[in-house]
């Protein structure tokens, strides 16, 4: 797990998304009694961009937008990669 606190997740943005949203990291409180998915987190951060254009990783592993999120997870939203 990425962070230790109960009922919390960390959301991290990268590159153009970080600049467009105006923040890098946020700690969000989540309800342990409700199943949370990456899609829900995307909605929680009020991001208007098409989510299809982004890659998401949970605890440094790339996952689908409908993957489940657990307390303590680190969720990273990333634009397409342009290295090499």
């Amino acid at each position: 797990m990425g962070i230790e606190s109960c009922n919390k997740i960390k959301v991290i943005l990268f590159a153009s998304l970080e600049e467009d949203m105006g923040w890098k990291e946020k700690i969000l409180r989540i309800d342990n009694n409700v199943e949370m998915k990456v899609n829900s987190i995307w909605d929680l951060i009020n991001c208007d961009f098409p989510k299809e254009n982004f890659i998401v990783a949970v605890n440094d592993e790339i996952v689908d937008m409908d993957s489940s999120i657990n307390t303590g997870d680190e969720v990273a939203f990333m634009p397409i990669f342009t290295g090499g």
Partner: protein
Amino acid sequence: MDNSKIQFRILEETFNPYKEFELWEKVNKNSANSLFIGRVRPFDQYGNDLKKLEIIHNKGMTEKYIKRYLMNISKKQDNLSIFLLHRIGFIYPNEPIILLAISANHRGIANKYLQVILEFTKYSVPFWKKEWTFIGSSWVKKNTDLGFEL
């Protein structure tokens, strides 16, 4: 699997690709060696003169993905040595971004994995490029096409 046959580093400072290759080749005795050096173009994606290129990465995840991918290739292919250097930070026109060298028993294997691993670094590892010109900056929106099917 022999971990010593995989070497990769993410560098915050510029490097001399020929010196790095020379040092690496001294300990890699295979007969077929392929080398790729990628450098910063002097213009941005819109054709403007480029002042500098900035590369950022997802620290931790980037290293994890590269290591796992290279180890998987090493498991599949005997007698293969892989050497990968990739810059982050500010890089100036004509400075090296990436050095990739592959050593194998045959040219086909060396050339194949050079291309495969290079495309992996472009599309599957969390690096991002931002181009700085003399009037502003812009994120690189997509990689240049390979030009043929792998």
